[in-house]
């Protein structure tokens, strides 16, 4: 991860621009470090699911930048103590990977990979604020591992689509069977996807955004 090395060292001295692993390319280049200067706004989608389900793979497959990793500091009573901040609250950190897609000249879409476990819910609330929706990745070899993530999405009221990341040897489930096992609402889209394949991953995002449009037109 690009940021890992840097996070282990104190940043005592200012680093000259572009000294990192990723060279800064000039504004105007869509695939460089910086966004095109015409971009006026940003939107975000969460990619959620249990450890190892392929969140980072999917983000890396569709992102125009190498996925970046950052640490969300979360405050949680009773969490394993990492550092104690002013005020005596205990905090732990959770690594979040993210990528971006410049949609057109003035809009950029960020994809944030978010771990599913219930205990990371506090970290979610912040991230979910303002998110368009979420793509929930599911591994059919371990459906139960996805329950927390799906439950969190429902608690937050964030609309989502389910993408089944097809691994070699994944058991074949019919859509109805899967829907029942995951206790999904009838209108929640379920799509199969190969997180390593750009077109397949983009199609999963398209299924989600189509669903969001459907939800938005229904409620307006």
């Amino acid at each position, binding site marked *: 991860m690009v*940021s*890992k090395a*840097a*996070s*282990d060292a*104190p*940043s*005592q001295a*200012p*680093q000259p*621009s572009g000294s990192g692993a990723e060279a800064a390319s000039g504004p105007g280049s869509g695939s460089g*470090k*910086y966004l095109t*200067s015409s*971009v006026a*706004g*940003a*939107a*975000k989608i969460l990619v959620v699911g249990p*450890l190892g389900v392929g*969140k*980072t793979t999917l983000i*890396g497959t569709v992102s125009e930048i190498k*996925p*970046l990793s*950052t*640490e*969300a*500091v979360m405050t949680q009573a009773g969490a394993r103590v*990492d*550092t104690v*901040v*002013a*005020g005596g609250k205990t905090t*732990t*950190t*959770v*690594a*979040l990977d*993210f990528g971006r*897609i410049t*949609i*057109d000249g003035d*809009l*950029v*879409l*960020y994809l*944030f*990979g978010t771990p599913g*476990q219930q205990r990371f819910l506090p970290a979610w609330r*912040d991230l979910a604020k*303002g998110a*368009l929706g979420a793509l929930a990745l599911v591994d059919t070899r371990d459906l139960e591992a996805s329950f927390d993530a799906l439950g969190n999405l429902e608690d937050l009221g964030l609309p989502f689509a389910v993408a089944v990341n097809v691994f070699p040897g994944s058991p074949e489930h019919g859509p109805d069977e899967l829907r029942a096992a995951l206790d999904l609402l009838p209108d929640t889209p379920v799509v199969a996807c190969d997180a390593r394949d750009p077109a397949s991953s*983009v199609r999963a*995002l*398209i299924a989600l*955004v189509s669903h969001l*449009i459907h939800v*938005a037109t229904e409620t*307006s």
Partner: protein
Amino acid sequence: MTEPRPEEPTASAVRPYVITRGRAASDIESLAWESLVMATDAAFPASLQPEHQTILAHCQGLLSVAEVAAHIGQPPSVVQVLLCDLLEWGLIVTRPPVPPAEHTDVTMLRKVLHGLESRL
């Protein structure tokens, strides 16, 4: 590509609350992770804290708060506080995320849809 290890605690030699002088992102009107920021042309004082200077060095073009945090290896919660300082001093400008009212804006969602479809 490997999955991150979310449970692994990471530690910086300088504790985050030292860098922010005890301030937390929740104390201020904080920038969202996807808020876009960019350094202005204004000259900054030589006395500027090294962390602020590091951020400015990484903001020579338009980037999200999350990207700035990842590039400098500090948690976004710390970067949010420092960016608010820079904003107050006129050293960065920000482009806010799409306003909440527009989240269900079908026009915006259609734009995202078309943008994605054009990548197929």
